[in-house]
C-alpha cells in the first residue's frame, strides 16, 4: 500500500469494519454510562434521572468495593504466577524428546477446551469435595484430615481451578517460544561452560521474555473478568467476591442497575490502569 491511491482505497475498504467495531463498542459503553447516572431499579419501578455521581460515590465507598479490588488483584496475581511458572516448566518438559510426545501435548492442551462452568463443577464435585473428592481420598490415603477446600481456602481453590484452565495456554505459547530458540545458541553456551541452570537463566529465559509478556498481558485481560468459576463454586462468598462479581451482584441480586453500571465503569477504568502499568512494566520487552 505504497501509493496515495492504494492508501485511500484501503481506507474506504476498511471503513465498514471500523464503523461496525466502533458501534459495537460504543453503544454498550454509552448505555452503561447513561445508566450509571440514573437511579434505575427495575423491580421497584424507579427510573429517575439526574442521580449524578451518586452511584459512583456509593459504589466506591462501600467496604465491599475495597475488598473486591484486593480479592481481584490476589486472584489474578496468583493465577499469573502459577500459570507462568508452571507453563515454563511444562514447556521445558514438553520440549524434550519423550515417548508419545504428540499425545502428551494434546493431553496438556485439553483443559483449555473445557468450558469454565464445567471445569469448575468438575473440580468442585470430583476433586475438592471434602467427602468424596479425589483430593480428600488422597489426603486420607496419607492419613491426613481432608481439606475442606471451598469453605476453608476458597480463594486458593478458585486460583487452582482457573490456573488449571489457563496453564495450557501459557504452556502452548511458551513452548513455541522455546522451540524457536536457535539450538546453536544453546550449544555455544554449553561449550562456553554454562551448565543447565546458567543456560536456562542466561539464554532460554531472556529468549522467552517476549512470550512471557504476551502471556501475562492476554491472561490479565481475561482473568479480570473471571465469573463462571466463582459463580459455580462459592457464589462470591468467603472472600472470593471480585470486582466483576460485585458488579453482577449489584445489578442482578440487588436489582440496582444504576449502581451496577457505575461499578462497571469503575471496573473498566481500573482495568485500563492495570493494563497501562502492565504495558509500562513488561511492554519494554515487546519493542526491540
Amino acid at each position, binding site marked *: 500500500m505504497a501509493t496515495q491511491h492504494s492508501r485511500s482505497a484501503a481506507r474506504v475498504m476498511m471503513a465498514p469494519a471500523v464503523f461496525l467495531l466502533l458501534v459495537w463498542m460504543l453503544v454498550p459503553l454509552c448505555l452503561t454510562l447513561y445508566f450509571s447516572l440514573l437511579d434505575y431499579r427495575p423491580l421497584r419501578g424507579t427510573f429517575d434521572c439526574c442521580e449524578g455521581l451518586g452511584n459512583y460515590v456509593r459504589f466506591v465507598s462501600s467496604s465491599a468495593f475495597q475488598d473486591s479490588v484486593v480479592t481481584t488483584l490476589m486472584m489474578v496475581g496468583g493465577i499469573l504466577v502459577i500459570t507462568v511458572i508452571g507453563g515454563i516448566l511444562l514447556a521445558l518438559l514438553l520440549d524434550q524428546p519423550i515417548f508419545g510426545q504428540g499425545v502428551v501435548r494434546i493431553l496438556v492442551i485439553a483443559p483449555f477446551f473445557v468450558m469454565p462452568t464445567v471445569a469448575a463443577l468438575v473440580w468442585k464435585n470430583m476433586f475438592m469435595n471434602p467427602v468424596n473428592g479425589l483430593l480428600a481420598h488422597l489426603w486420607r490415603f496419607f492419613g491426613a484430615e481432608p481439606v475442606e477446600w471451598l469453605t476453608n481456602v476458597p480463594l486458593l481453590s478458585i486460583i487452582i481451578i482457573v490456573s488449571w484452565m489457563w496453564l495450557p495456554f501459557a504452556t502452548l505459547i511458551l513452548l513455541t517460544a522455546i522451540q524457536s530458540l536457535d539450538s546453536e545458541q544453546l*550449544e*555455544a*553456551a554449553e*561449550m*562456553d561452560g*554454562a551448565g543447565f541452570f546458567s543456560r536456562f537463566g542466561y*539464554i532460554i529465559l*531472556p529468549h522467552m521474555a517476549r512470550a512471557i509478556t504476551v502471556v501475562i498481558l492476554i491472561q490479565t485481560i481475561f482473568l479480570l473478568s473471571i465469573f463462571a468459576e466463582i459463580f459455580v463454586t462459592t457464589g462470591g462468598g468467603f472472600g472470593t467476591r471480585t470486582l466483576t462479581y460485585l458488579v453482577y451482584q449489584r445489578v442482578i441480586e440487588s436489582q440496582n442497575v444504576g449502581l451496577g453500571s457505575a461499578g462497571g465503569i469503575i471496573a473498566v477504568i481500573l482495568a485500563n490502569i492495570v493494563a497501562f502499568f502492565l504495558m509500562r512494566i513488561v511492554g519494554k520487552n515487546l519493542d526491540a
Partner: protein
Amino acid sequence: MGRITLDKVRKAFGEVEVIPPLDLTIEDGEFVVFVGPSGCGKSTLLRLIAGLEDVTDGQIRIDGQDATRVPPAKRGLAMVFQSYALYPHMSVRKNIAFPLKMAGLPQAEQDKRVTNAASVLNLTDYLERRPGQLSGGQRQRVAIGRAIVREPAAFLFDEPLSNLDAALRVGMRLEISELHKRLETTMIYVTHDQVEAMTMADKIVVLRAGNIEQVGSPLELYKEPRNLFVAGFIGSPKMNLLDGDEAARRNAATIGVRPEHIVPSATEGPWQGTVGVSEHLGSDTFFHVHLDGRKEPITVRAGGEVDMHHGDRIFLTPDESRIHRFDAEGLRIP
C-alpha cells in the same frame, strides 16, 4: 597445547552410518581444514570433536587424554558456529565475557581479557551494542572474540565465512590466518570452499561420505591427488578428466590435466578443438574447448590477452610431465 587424535571414531545416527571408523591426528598448532561436498560429514566430525555429538564407537584424545566422554565445556575447545550463535539479548561485551563469567573469573580479569580481544579484533567501538546492531563481518568477529578469550587448546570453525559476501570473506580469511600465526593455537576449520582450504590450511583433510580420501598439505593435494575425487575437488577451475584413447595411450583408465598445464595455440598442438565459451578475468582467460570427437568441453587457461573467440579452431599442448594418471578404480598411478 592442542594435539587431537581420533582413533577409529565412528558415528551413526540410528541405522545410518555417517562416519565410518576414521583415524586422524591433528598436531599442536596446526591449521587443519576439513573439506568435502555438502553432506559428507564435516560438521558431524567437528561436532564429535567438540563433544556436541556422542561418539558411537572409538576414542577421541586431546593431548593424550581420553576425552571421548568428557562434556564439551571441559574439553578446553572453543567453537565458532556458522550462524555465529551470538546471544542476542546481551551486549557485545557481555557476549565476549560470557565464557569467562561461566568459568568464574574475577571481574577485573574478565574486563582485561575482553578489552584485549576487542582491540585485537577491532571491536572496541562496538562493545556496548547488541549483536542485532552489527554487520555480518562484525558479528563474525564477536563470535571469534568469544572464542579467543577462553584461551582454548584448539579452535573449531564450522563454515564461519559462508554467510559473508565475497569481498568480506577474503578479508576475514586473512584475519583468521593472521590470528592463527599470532596465537599458534590448533585450529580446525570446516568449509566446502576449496579456495579457503588451499589458502589457509597447513593440512587439508578431504572427506567424502564420512571417509577420509586424502590428508596432506595443500600443495601435496594439488600435485599428487591420490584419486579421482581429490583430483576433481582440489584446484580451481577443476582438473580436466579424459578417458578413452587419450588415456589408453598413457596406460591409464582416466587421465587428468589441470587447465593451467595446457598451452593453447592457434596453429599447432596434438589436441584440436573449437573454442566455446570464454571467461575473461583480466589476469587470466579460461577457454572452454570442445575437443574433436569429445562431448565434454575441457577448460584451458591462457594469459590475459589472448585473441581467440567463440568458434575459432584451437590447438592444445598438455604438459606431459604434469598429466595425472588414474586406474580403473580411480586410484592414482604413480
